[in-house]
């Protein structure tokens, strides 16, 4: 049987992280094709519902990326993201979904860091194995 290939949905803010992911591209930094990026203007646009929806519909992991604290294009947007992430982490623990969702700050010049995070996260999710959600969870 071939190795388990996780599906990972990445949310990226337009100003920092999406640009950083683009930079990984123009610098031709290889990372596994398991991740697909959804563009939003700010990481604070990403609701808990969106993350859970991704997991429910078949994603094995979700990576939320945004500008570094203090660097948000919308002043304090990413602090909302951080607060929401802490809340979500507790929910995920209760649901037995530890480690499936990760938050990372990726700046527009951190292409290399994104490629690194991408590789690591894919490996982590591979270790966790495919996400099988019991009906009652969602």
């Amino acid at each position, binding site marked *: 049987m071939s190795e388990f*290939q996780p*599906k990972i*949905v990445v949310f990226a803010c*337009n*100003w*920092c992280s*999406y*640009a950083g*992911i*683009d930079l*990984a*591209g*123009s610098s*031709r*930094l*290889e*990372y*596994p*094709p398991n991740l*697909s*990026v*959804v*563009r*939003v*203007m*700010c990481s*604070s*646009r*990403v*609701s808990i*519902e*969106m993350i859970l*929806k*991704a*997991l*429910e*519909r*078949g*994603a094995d992991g979700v990576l939320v990326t945004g*500008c570094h604290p*203090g*660097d*948000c*294009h*919308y*002043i*304090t*947007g990413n602090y*909302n993201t951080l607060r*929401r992430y802490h809340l979500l982490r507790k929910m995920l623990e209760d649901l037995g979904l530890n480690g499936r969702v990760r938050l990372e700050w990726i*700046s*527009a*010049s*951190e292409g290399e860091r994104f*490629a690194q995070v991408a590789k690591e996260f894919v490996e982590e999710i591979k270790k966790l194995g495919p996400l099988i959600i019991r009906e009652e969870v969602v």
Partner: protein
Amino acid sequence: MEEVRIGIYICHCGKNIAGVINPKRIVEHLSRLPNVVVAKEYLYMCSSPGQSLIEEDIKEYNLNRIIVAACSPRMHEPTFQSALIRAGLNPYLLEMVNIREHATWVHERDPAETEQKVIGLIRAAVHRAINLYPLEVERLPVVKSVLVVGGGIAGIRASLDLAKAGYKVYLVEKNQSIGGKMAQLDKTFPTLDCSQCILTPMMVDVSNNPNIILQTYSVVEEINGRPGEFEVKVRQKARYVDWDACTGCGTCVEKCPARVPSEFDEGLGTRKAIYFDFPQAIPRRPVIDPDHCLYLIKGVCRVCEKFCPTGAIKFEDEDQFLTLKVGAIVVATGYQLYDMRKMYEYGYGKYRNVITGMQLERLSSANGPTSGRITTIEIERGKIKPGKEPETVAIILCAGSRDENHIKYCCRIGCMAGLKHAYYIAHALPNSKIIICYTDIRAFGKGFEEFYQRIRSLPNVFMVRGRPMEIFENKDGSLILDVFDSNTNRRLTINADLVVLETALVPPQGFEEFRKILKISCDPGGFGLELHPKLKPVETTVDGIYLAGFIQGPKDIPDTVAHAGAAAAAASAFLAKGYIESIPYLAHVDEDICSGCGVCVSVCPYDAITIEVTDGRRLAKVNSVKCKGCGACAAACPSGAMQQHYFTDKQILSEVSALAEGVVA
């Protein structure tokens, strides 16, 4: 409701995309997706035939959604949006899929998987596109004035160009005078022009230009508003001199009894507590340094006041705040030297005869502390004074640069500055011996190689390929350097009377905070990040904010001037257009669902949402002028009443679900 009719266009981007995946095969796959009327592939979608293909298809097939799978939307979204507009379609019915930066460029080793990923991305775009709807933008006015921050050669050049184009320019400089680092240089490589001679006339032009309002000894504290109408809060530091009353005669400076190490002379000379940065300062209006003025610290003296013929001294002066309204901002805040004390092995700050290249510029300058004599440094009763003529001088290139432990990048200046410094010494002291310790000589600019050849062939200049490991001081203040020369494979011990460090160059003090006020990004070295490394070298992620000169990354004067000219041209174009389009991605409320709970109010960074009572019901109201379109409110809304245009829950969720499902159909 109108039937959704989608056209999909896959770009080969030459071999960038089609070299990894097979667009033809993908097209076949896509035709099976819902609402897809046509799917095509083409060599370069962004080219004129590529764009025409979309325009013609929109008319022929009556398409009302367009998906372009190509490069990043950050690159060509506006290109394809205008194709839609030309074909009579609302530009927000376009969806771009980034299959180059996010797929073929990063998963080249895995073509089969990449193709699956691309199909998945396009499939998700189809689901999202179905939920798109037309958006309208407003035209917002642009104020025809511009703020230039930093009065070095970059800020000077940008200000003059913008003033020439007819715009009102506010030039804000933190020091007393404009001029920047170039004013401190003696001569400039590679032609050895006298720096002051080419700079000071431009400084005078700035002060005489009626379109330029010079605001020195000031810093930017806050920026509000939007591109085209920024509101800038400037702090004018207390000058303790009424500049309107002052005539710039300089009597006060002459009479002031307090002596302070001069920043302009890099600590090698002194200035007074009431001072001009340097004799040729523009504006010619002095300031009092409150940390060293005897009256301000001890309450006695007032000599300047006594001698001032116009009564301009104003000890009760305070910081003042001004608000400027500008359409665009040019950031030209330059650089500073890396703090060489961090490289303890070279002993800078500890050994008096280890100096920086900038200190040598001051020693060599006719308006410097030694009136242009190059000497060793003596310290007498805690005071710096000139010593003897050095017999041997070592010049160390890459001091702190290209160094994992300090600054990784190349300073782009040190090689040429070091060669120039060898020339200063060889010219002034023909009997001296000059040893240049280099890593590589990077002589890439126009006339640089010729300059290098000229200097290295001087009889008293010696080239050693290696960085000294450590520097030791002798009792008499001379120095011993230990260096391995990889040209001759020999370990050398060099005795030198003076060591010149061509230091790493880094972003100016306070830039990290300033760029956060500007809300622009930085590169790994901390310099301002341009929007595109090749095509948008002066633009930033914020419309209407441009970078000029060294602040975008190391540059010599010719490159700085070219870059500043480009920044001025970009700012002019932005202002000349006269309007900008409002952000289409704003928040809006479905009043039928809103319960008026106010969670949105608490997460909005702009106070753009208020809760108002209408017909006895509490409802959220969005102020579309204040809203900047982050979407935080939409994510926080518990009922889904708050939405963001182009990023509605429905649009994002349909995309996310499709991606999570993967390629199923």
